[in-house]
């Protein structure tokens, strides 16, 4: 019982299936508060399903097992999912019932570098700008748990690097627990404290990454882990 107090997320024997097809198979997992977890896995390994289960977005699944997580959860999707009929700032503060919501949203927009886009329509933003607005919407709620489903997957390589740096800078103070689903082994290596590899609906590997930030790709510990992760994902690094 005591373990539950220090863990932000506790998952026990969690299974999910859709129309009889098992996607998550008896997953058990403890995540300490403030840990940054990257979830790697091939397409169809169940990464997104696990994230949607924790977000409470899988009413249509047959569920078994249980989990506990903080009430204050934000979700960052791959697409920005801004409401096209709301200005950027109205999107960021959507549903916030705080008297200072507007001022806080303005400050958060300035933080993500969109201070001058507050009253713009989402359709006028670039892909990277939309994702910044989406990040601002997620973090304005000061979540205890941030669930991110390949949030930078659709961005070009340079924008992705900038967004990764921005995310690290912003969560430095808030220190939420983060679960980041990603295809990108380097992204996982650069950002996460812990890397999980999901295979056929269960956790196949669990690695701690204790290197301090900022990291860069050529550090030996990362290179070794990269080769291992790529191999477990079915890619022979030597062939590239």
């Amino acid at each position: 019982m005591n373990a539950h107090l220090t863990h932000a997320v506790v998952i026990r024997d969690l299974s999910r299936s859709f129309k009889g097809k098992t996607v998550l198979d008896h997953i058990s997992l403890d995540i300490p508060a403030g840990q940054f977890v990257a979830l790697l896995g091939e397409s169809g390994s169940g990464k997104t399903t696990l994230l949607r289960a924790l977000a409470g977005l899988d009413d249509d699944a047959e569920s078994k097992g249980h989990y506990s997580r903080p009430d204050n959860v934000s979700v960052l999707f791959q697409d920005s999912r801004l409401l096209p009929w709301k200005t950027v700032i109205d999107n960021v503060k959507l549903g916030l019932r705080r008297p200072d919501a507007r001022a806080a949203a303005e400050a958060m927009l300035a933080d993500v570098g969109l201070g001058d886009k507050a009253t713009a329509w989402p359709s006028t933003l670039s892909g990277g700008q939309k994702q910044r607005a989406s990040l601002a919407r997620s973090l304005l709620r000061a979540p205890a748990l941030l669930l991110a489903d390949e949030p930078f997957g659709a961005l070009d390589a340079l924008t992705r690097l900038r967004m990764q740096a921005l995310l690290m800078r912003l969560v430095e103070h808030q220190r939420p627990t983060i679960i980041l689903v990603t295809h990108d082994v380097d992204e996982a290596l650069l950002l996460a404290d812990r890397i999980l590899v999901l295979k056929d609906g269960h956790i196949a590997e669990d690695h701690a990454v204790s290197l301090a930030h900022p990291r860069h790709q050529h550090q030996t510990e990362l290179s070794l882990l990269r080769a291992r992760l790529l191999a477990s994902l079915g890619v022979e690094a030597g062939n590239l």
Partner: protein
Amino acid sequence: MARLNARGLLSLRGAVLPLGALSLWWMVTSLGLVRGPLVVTPVQVVAVPFLDASGRELWAALGTSMARVLAGGLIGGLIGLTAGYLTGLYRLAALGLSPTVHSIRQVALFAWIPLLTAWFGNGEATKLVFTALSAFFPLFLATEQGIRQVPRPLVDVASVLNLTYLTRITKLYLPAALPSIYIGLQIAVLSAWIGTIGAEYAIGNGRGLGSFIASGRDQFRMDIVLAGVITLAAGGVLLNSLATRLSHALSPWTKDLR
């Protein structure tokens, strides 16, 4: 400027056919090629709403019809919007209400008139109910469709952000359904206009553009009938542009997409 002029000229292309028909009509009647008690010239038709005692009734008739179409259209439109919202969002409402409405919709609109006059008499009530009915169906269908097509990813966002029920309606479902509702609104406005004029024409008594045309026909006054028909068309264009303006004013975020 050059571009503006070119565009101005292009927009005049649409006027070629009506102007040609008008010239032909004017030539045929003023040269006396066609004669008879029912033949009138364009000039007579234009003059009759101003110079003729019976013709001057056109303005009051137009005002009455407009008031009727707005009142009836508003009642029917609001009911259609509400019903469409409920059947679009709730399975229970869809199962309970949709089959009935979709069946009743198959009845040709004007087939309702005998029944409505039996229920509501030959007065204002029947005309209003008929107009409301004409506006109801298009808005019901469009709203139901629009609400059903709200993108699932945005519904997920609403649920992740813990939006209240009221916020979900006003900030998610209704705005997301607006493009579909606008198409419904344009059809509903014209349908209600046709319904108003049709009810006035079929019932015959009381004031209104439909009764105005009917009485012109009974007096064999083709100038009055034609002036009425032209006003009817102008009224339709006016209502259509009102609906478009309303749509645009309510959805400023589509300005760049128009």
